[in-house]
């Protein structure tokens, strides 16, 4: 597995992408994304498809992107894209599994903290086949409820107010943040009822977006 180090454009973020050799010429993929916070650690996202429901083992699968909309008490949506079809057999063998995205802090190649941030029941499979590339897209939904807490966030890179609904995009995700939490960012304090994630590995780097909104 080729390890590719890239420098993020952001002032505090470095990324480390691992790309399967088979598809390295086609698309970058992520099996871990390290967002280096100089003062603390890198941030890593990992995808796991569970196998217990199919009497098999869990498997970590490299992904090229994921996006999610996480809600409190309402269905959370998760979509992950797997480059290539190398894992088709493993996915078929876990057709009743759960899609998990973990977020972890990693430093000196060691996980300081790892926590599941999004979970969804494996519901649909989409197979895309082009002339030179193939992808498998898995999606799922799951409704969870979270205990309300407060969180102070920083690093807002974008703020909007639409019809009184505040949104912030931040560059430093918080591993403990859940929908429904009361967050304080800058001068804003509001209930983060929807947390959206969008991460995509590209040849030129990493597009990432984490948005916290009131609704």
């Amino acid at each position, binding site marked *: 597995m080729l390890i590719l180090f890239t420098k993020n454009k952001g002032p505090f973020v470095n990324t480390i992408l691992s790309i399967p050799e088979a598809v390295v010429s086609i698309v970058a993929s992520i099996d871990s994304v390290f967002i280096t916070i100089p003062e603390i650690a890198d941030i890593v996202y990992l995808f796991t498809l569970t196998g217990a429901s199919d009497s098999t083992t869990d498997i970590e699968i490299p992904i090229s992107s994921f996006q999610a909309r996480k809600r409190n008490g309402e269905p959370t949506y998760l979509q992950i894209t797997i480059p290539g*079809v190398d894992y088709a*057999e493993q*996915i*078929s063998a876990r057709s009743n599994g759960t899609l998990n995205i973990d977020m972890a802090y990693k430093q000196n190649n060691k996980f300081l903290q790892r926590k599941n941030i999004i979970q969804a029941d494996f*519901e649909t499979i989409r*197979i895309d086949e082009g002339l030179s590339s193939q992808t498998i897209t898995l999606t799922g939904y799951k409704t969870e409820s979270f205990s309300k807490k407060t969180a102070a966030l920083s690093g807002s890179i974008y703020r909007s107010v639409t019809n009184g609904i505040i949104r912030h995009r931040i560059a430093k995700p918080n591993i403990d943040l859940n929908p429904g939490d009361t967050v304080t960012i800058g001068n804003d304090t509001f209930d983060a009822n929807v947390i959206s994630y969008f991460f995509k590995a590209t040849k030129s780097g990493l597009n990432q977006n984490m948005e916290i909104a009131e609704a």
Partner: protein
Amino acid sequence: MGKGSIISGGEDGQYQIKVLFDIAAKELEIQRIEAMIASLNTKLSITFEQKARALIDLEIVSYQKRLSAINAIPEDKTISAWCADFTENLTGEIGTIEVPGEIGTVNIHPGFDGKSAYVAADHGLHHATASLPPSGTFYNLAMLPGWQKWKPTFRYAVIDSLDAGLANITFENTTSSQQGLNINQSDTAEDVVIEYMDCNDSAFEVGDSVLVMFTGQDWAQPKIIGFKDNPQPCGGVLKISCGGLCFYWDIKNDSYLSGVLDFNGNAVSFPASESDISKAPTVSESANSLFTTSSYYYPSYPPITVWCSANTVNSNSIPNPYPDESGSTNNTSSRYCSNVSVVGYYDETYDIRVGKETHVGDKSQRITPRNISVNPQSFSVDLKQEQVDKTIKYHEGGGDQHLLTDRVLTEYKTTYTPFGQNNPSEIVLSLQNYDENSGVFETKMIFEHELDESSYNRVYGKYTETDLVQIWVTGAVKVERTEMDCSRFLLNNWWANNDGFIFEDEQTICNFHYDWYGHIVIDNTPTYEEITSFKIWASASRNLDTSIINPFDETTGGNFQDAVELLANTVKDIAELDLDDSEVFIPYFTIELS
């Protein structure tokens, strides 16, 4: 709007229903997926390259997941739903109403006159979101708030005021499930038409939560078509018929119903001939009169009973509480006893509640004891036909008269009350208001009447949240009195042979004519006017008391009674032409409630 099926219920308009979804699309999708899986399995059987097989396998899993999702789409949903109007007998498939155009609160279309029966073209059919393609789902959800607001179907509202059959209403705050957008075009509406069963506004009151339909999906054309929940029966319209004449009564307004038209389109004057009426509310057949035939009645002659008041030595007069044929209540003179009897007495009751008949009392002829000064509809005692031992023992000694005993009547038959019949443990004939100086006394009949449970429930237990109509007719009452000398000879005879009145100082016994016991003596044939002077007690009221009530505590008389009497007298005036002096007319009423 959509399609539903009645499961159970109906009381007060509330049902358990299944909301039925369109399953045609679901079945088509299942067929398509199963065909694809079969095709992929065929492909798999001829594919040997591992990676290709893995991909086909994954594709099969993909279709299987889709199949599971499609199979999980419900084909119906069981809910509790109120019919928008007071229809309690719905069955089969019905049209549903969703307010405000998406499944939240579901009502059943107004069922009056069978109008809630499902018609696909009118009521449509629900599609489960999951059975639609994503593009269709997105389009529908994106468009939802727009058409909810600008092409409205139904809303809930509260009636602020009612005037001349039109209502001013305030709409409930209504938002779409999509984005929570306000989808009301205005907060209020004025002069809203009410189209409800066959009585329109009469079923509604200020403060009612109502279901509003927009004609042509036009916000400017609201129309109240029912209640949000707990629909009310019309109940406000009453039809009283008698001898071919009738009138319609608005119970709520305590007046003749307006808007009843003749064939020229003019409002009719009541009482009116039924054949002259072209447009009037439909009334319930189930609330017809207790009687099945209408006829003239001859005077009835119930078994005779006697009442006696007697004076003693001082020759003072004795009060007679019952009028004679001339209406006089003059006291009987000394040494005379009064025989007051009733001839030609007929008593009938009508009592109807919405949708059900409740027979208060029975149709038997009755005698009201002479010594009970109450209205005949309050209670009566049916004394034994032979006689009633009602002798009174009276004692006077040392110049002071005093009562020795009350007399306990032991030979009576049955007491009747408006609540049924009963056998009290005893009836005491009591001497009361005795005046020592005048020697005058009165007699009172005293008994306790205990209602058994069934009688109590029958009368008291059912008059809740309903309209109550009562008409009592007491007809052909004639009271006559004979006077006779209470001679010492006769008294002695009586004393010797009977347990009569005993006056210890003079051993005076007032012996009445023996014929008093056993049969009636009619000395004078009642005149026609006397015998046809029926009396009517009538009430029509809306009982909103939710506790057990005595219906006879309801207001009696007033406008409704006047209307009933006018109707009866008008009929009588017409019928008089066909009656001879031996016949008597008792008005026969048919009572119908909407």
